[in-house]
């Protein structure tokens, strides 16, 4: 005869720690999502079973707005997609319109566009590096990254009049010529930043805690990278050579030599290293061009009302996040019939579930940081 205590006491057979999966909301107001992105996590303890992004919190329907605007107006809307690559977004639309009009812009325009594009890329990677450190708990990096980005923003402010949404490109060229200080200050920045990337490495890259957070986490294979339509540093960290600047050069990028940063490991650390390497390559591109800005006009005249010939036009460029495609369908009127922006962030977020499953919640934050998400770019 068992006592009451014996009846309810656990024995080897009646212990049943049933693990239960449950949902946790990450975001839409979460510092690590860098904007209003909501992730629905299905977790079992600390282990992630499923990540489902819920998008649309900042969707402005830019594609629909484009359908009622003129081609000059569309350019300004693209600033608000990936605001860290605003110059490159503007360039993409301008290149598409120029392609449709069969308009050859002066060499001066091409070179200036490329220099500012690469400065934009460095500025974007500086910001990414700062918040990347912050996401894994190293608050100091934020201030170092922003210190150097500030110098670039000052250059932009002088030449373009704005620091973030620059609106410097127009179909046919540039809004106005570069500021007399532009060359001098860009050279100063290049000299300055060359001493700072090694500092970044000393501060974060070699840090043993950081390395352990990054190595072997969030692995993406090359085949999956292609299948998921990944692009930019995310894909190049998996050994997939996809740099639009190499494969489909635009502006003055066919005149410069640079190496495509490639890593084959496919983990978070590889994506991190690709971006650090890209900053060096961008510096090299700027150095090759900054002393050779050709003389000439800064724009060619276009009609006040631009009408594209009937047809379909596609142009891709490499933003700091990857491949941005602009697809314009024209029926020959002053407004486009349909505009589609193939944004790099949208394809890159779609593989988050694939690489985060099986990992821990803490690793998800670190993995997302290496995807370098900008939410308005995903939502458009």
């Amino acid at each position, binding site marked *: 005869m068992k006592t009451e205590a014996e009846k309810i006491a656990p024995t080897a057979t009646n212990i049943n720690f049933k693990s239960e999966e449950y949902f946790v909301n990450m975001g839409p107001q979460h510092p690590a999502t860098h904007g209003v992105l909501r992730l629905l996590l299905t977790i079992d303890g600390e282990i992630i079973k499923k990540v489902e992004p819920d*998008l649309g919190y900042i969707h402005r329907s830019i594609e629909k707005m484009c359908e*009622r605007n003129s081609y000059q107006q569309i350019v300004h809307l693209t600033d608000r997609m990936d605001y860290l690559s605003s110059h490159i977004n503007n360039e993409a639309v301008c290149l598409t319109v120029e392609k449709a009009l069969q308009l050859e812009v002066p060499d001066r325009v091409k070179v200036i566009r490329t220099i500012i594009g690469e400065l934009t890329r460095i500025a974007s990677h500086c910001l990414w590096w700062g918040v990347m450190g912050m996401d894994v708990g190293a608050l100091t990096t934020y201030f170092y990254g922003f210190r150097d980005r500030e110098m670039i923003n000052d250059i932009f402010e002088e030449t373009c009049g704005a620091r973030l949404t620059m609106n410097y490109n127009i179909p046919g060229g540039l809004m106005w010529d570069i500021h007399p200080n532009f060359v001098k200050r860009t050279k100063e920045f290049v000299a300055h930043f060359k001493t700072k990337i090694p500092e970044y490495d000393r501060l974060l890259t070699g840090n043993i805690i950081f390395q352990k957070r990054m190595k072997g986490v969030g692995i993406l294979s090359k085949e*999956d990278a*292609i299948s998921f339509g990944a692009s930019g540093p995310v894909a190049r960290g998996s050994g997939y*050579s996809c740099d639009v600047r190499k494969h489909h050069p635009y502006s003055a990028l066919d005149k410069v030599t640079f190496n495509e940063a490639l890593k084959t490991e496919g983990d978070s650390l590889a994506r991190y290293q690709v971006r650090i390497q890209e900053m060096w390559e961008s510096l090299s591109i700027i150095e090759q061009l900054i002393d050779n800005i050709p003389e000439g006009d800064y724009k060619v005249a276009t009609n006040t009302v631009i009408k594209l010939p009937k047809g379909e036009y596609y142009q891709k460029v490499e933003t700091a996040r990857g491949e941005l*495609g602009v697809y314009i369908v024209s029926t020959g009127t002053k407004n486009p019939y*349909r505009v589609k922006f193939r944004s790099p962030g949208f394809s890159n977020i779609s593989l988050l579930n694939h690489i985060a499953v099986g990992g821990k919640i803490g690793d998800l934050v670190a993995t997302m940081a290496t995807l370098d998400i900008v939410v308005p770019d995903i939502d458009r």
Partner: protein
Amino acid sequence: MNNNELQELIGSWFPNPEVTIASVVVEENQESSDLSTEKNVEKITAKEGINPSLLSFTEEDSEFLTILVKPEHLHSLMKQLKNNPKTQFDYLYCLTGMDWGKELGVVYHLESTVYRHQLVVKVNTEDRENPVFDSVCDIWKTAEFHEREVFDFFGIKFNNHPNLKYLFLTEEWEGYPLRKDYVDEVNMVIK
């Protein structure tokens, strides 16, 4: 592969039944030792051999070779394009929903990372009430999100999609915003 070679190869996957019948008839006639007709058989180019009711090619108004395919053959064509060792279109870089006014459609931009050739595939339907195409998620994983985006804004449904629900819009949203006949008097500025 250049556009002509691509067109020839892809066209050969969709032979024109009438051409095949014609050539069989000609072959039977060969027994009457008519050598000139035998040469004519070889001259039948792939372009004529394509079944025009299944797909058609165009290079007009676009820098890419464009295929217009019937919805029921979309999936088999896409599977061939991805898996055939000569085409290997393994990179679907853009998937766009379209409202052509009367028809609804989807535009697929494809590139091969091996050969670097590019191709555009279009598929259209006149059914605006219940437009349905086959999903290509099983061929390119990126299609899962892009097709959900098209479902949001155009109301185009995709067969065999693993998770077809609104991605951007809220569940109670009415209408399909990127369609040309969408009306929202409060939030839309119409010029």
